[in-house]
């Protein structure tokens, strides 16, 4: 049975419809990615799963129970807009947050100690959060999310604002959680970040689900119709290619989606005439490419896909 079951939920704020008839299921022990550009309705959907806002229509069940303040305790949630009480001490704060999730004082203190030890942060117990560096308070934020040992973890844009060390740490935590058969859902508009981590994905655009399923199967169904090329030399030849779409372009790299049966060998020949080729590989399309070809280029504000 699905751990999170989202059943045709809709939500409007005034005249804007943020989420429209959305369905998806998250299976136990999987890492589930909720993808889409900014403003696609991901955060609204996540807030509804967390019972922070209530859907106008549709139902959400968590472990078979309707979303409520009871199901909130089964979830560890790290919102996109995150922070801590700056004037409160680290230890007190973590205990307070864990107790709000239903732990007793003793349980909360024990788990706080445990996690602070694990992150080599025991010395911070009596420090005020305002005295910590940004990277340190990000660690405290992780602990606050996971300390009550829930079954389900929801991270909204978890990598935004994280320093590289904490980004790696978060990835490790997520993978460790999956090994413990926990369920993880996270959202991001940076598609390439999730490619390595997600089992299942759900693509959002303009409040609706445009594509969902197992990431491997989705990629395979698109076929190996993409080329990644690494080169040294004049990159303007890329502009002369026809029947292609170029994503992820930089001075010596490009990801080329081949359209309408354009011959890949011709691309290679053209490239060889203008630049020194280091690498030329035929691959499955990236998630960004899948997203673009699913919703159509006209339906995307290019700035939203950072």
């Amino acid at each position: 049975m699905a751990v999170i079951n989202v059943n045709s939920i809709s939500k409007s704020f005034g005249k804007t419809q943020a989420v429209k008839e959305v369905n998806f299921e998250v299976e136990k022990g999987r890492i589930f990615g909720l993808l889409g550009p900014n403003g696609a309705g991901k955060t609204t959907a996540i807030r509804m799963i967390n019972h922070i806002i209530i859907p106008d229509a549709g139902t959400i069940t968590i472990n078979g129970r309707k979303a409520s303040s009871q199901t909130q305790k089964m979830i560890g949630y790290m919102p996109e807009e995150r922070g801590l009480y700056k004037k409160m001490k680290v230890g007190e704060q973590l205990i307070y947050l864990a107790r709000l999730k239903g732990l007793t004082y003793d349980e909360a203190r024990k788990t706080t100690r445990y996690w602070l030890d694990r992150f080599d942060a025991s010395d911070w117990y009596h420090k005020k959060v305002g005295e910590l560096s940004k990277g340190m308070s990000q660690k405290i934020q992780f602990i606050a999310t996971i300390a009550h040992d829930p079954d389900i973890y929801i991270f909204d844009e978890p990598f935004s604002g994280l320093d590289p060390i904490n980004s790696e740490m978060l990835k490790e935590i997520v993978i460790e959680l999956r090994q413990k058969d926990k369920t993880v859902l996270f959202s991001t508009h940076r598609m390439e970040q999730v490619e390595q981590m997600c089992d299942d994905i759900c693509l959002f655009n303009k409040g609706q689900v445009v594509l969902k399923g197992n990431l491997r199967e989705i990629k395979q169904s698109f076929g190996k119709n993409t080329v990644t090329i690494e080169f040294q030399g004049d990159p303007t030849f890329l502009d002369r290619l026809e029947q292609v779409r170029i994503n992820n372009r930089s001075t010596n790299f490009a990801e080329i989606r081949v359209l309408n049966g354009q011959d890949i060998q011709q691309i290679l020949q053209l490239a060889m005439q203008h630049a020194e080729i280091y690498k030329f590989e035929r691959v499955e399309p990236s998630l960004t490419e899948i997203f673009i070809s699913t919703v159509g280029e006209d339906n995307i504000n290019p700035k939203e896909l950072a």
Partner: protein
Amino acid sequence: MNFHQILLVLKREYVTRLRSRGFIIATILIPLGMLAFIGTGIGIALWDSGAEHTIGVVDKTGALYPRLEKLAGDRYQDLSPLSDDSLDARVLHERIDGYVVLSEAHLRLEENPRFVSSGAGGISLQSSIQSDLQTVIRDERIARAEVSEEVQQIFATGISLSTVKLSPQGEATEDDTGFLTLVGMAMGIIIFGSVLGYGGMLTRSVIEEKTNRIIEVITSSVKPIELLLGKMAGVGALAISQLTFWLASFFALATAAGPLAGILLRSDPGMTTVPEGAGGIDPAIFTMPDISPSLILYFVLFFILGYLLYSSLFAAIGSAVDSETDTQQFMFPIMIPVMIGYFIMFRAMENPDSTLAVAGSLIPFCTPIVMITRIAITDVPFWQISLSILLMIVTFALTMWLSAKIYSVGILSYGNSAGFKELWKWIRE
């Protein structure tokens, strides 16, 4: 609604604030500040009443100056030999503040005395001179009229009111109206200040959770209404603790310092210059008359009701804005009823049973400030008290509902402060 969650929020709000350095400093400094404020007021009054003015008198009757000298010798100076020109010169050189030329015509009331001055002393000096002249001219006329001793005594009659207040038990008790008016005013002002002070604290507390971006973490565990109630109760508990501390230290100080202040002020030279019967301070005011327990009970009740009524609104303001500087436009409509209540309170002190005072004490937003002042001074009919409490509870239910609506939407909207139009939309949602 989960009571356990509310309690957790309450405790955090209370404990972290109670321990904060700012709170401890404020608890100590605010009473000291008030003492300094009152002290400065008394100091100014003493210094002011001690200001000396010298009025030159040219007495052509020969009878009036001695009487003036007897009445207020340090104000008047006999300048009889001088001419008008040299008197004018003295006024212009500020050697005297003014002069009066008195003649037989004034004694016969054919002419009004003329006071020539540089304008110094203002209206209070003029009225003192007028009343002094009235006294001496009247006395001189009585003396000249050669009326009997008896009639002279009649004219010398001085009346002072000895006041007695009838208690419901029918016994005549000593009237403390003067003292109780002060108590009523103090209570009204305390409630007024608390509503604004603790309300502002709650606004800042809500804004803090928004700007720290912790609010969404909290709302994934706690319902907005639980958070709101917990915060209101936490700051409320803080208010009561602080007030208890202040009142306790006030009574302790008053018991010790009251008699002392009485002795000091009685022997103060600045005070003795005030003429008898013209507002001389009764030393009895410094011995603390009893404040009835029911008055204290009502004070606590109206304090709590007033806090509840306003605090939810202050929390709603905090949730609607993105930074403290944006609170102004919303503070204004809340400040209006508070200020109206504050002004009605001063009218109610003078006339606690006037229509304005009664009406003001029944308007829920003014009730806590006005009603407590009335209760302190006069016997407010029980139906008025119960009606005002009932109205406050009903209004509280309404503002609470309104605030909860605004709060639950407001806390999750970041980025910009809402306007009145948005608030209305949130309420209707």
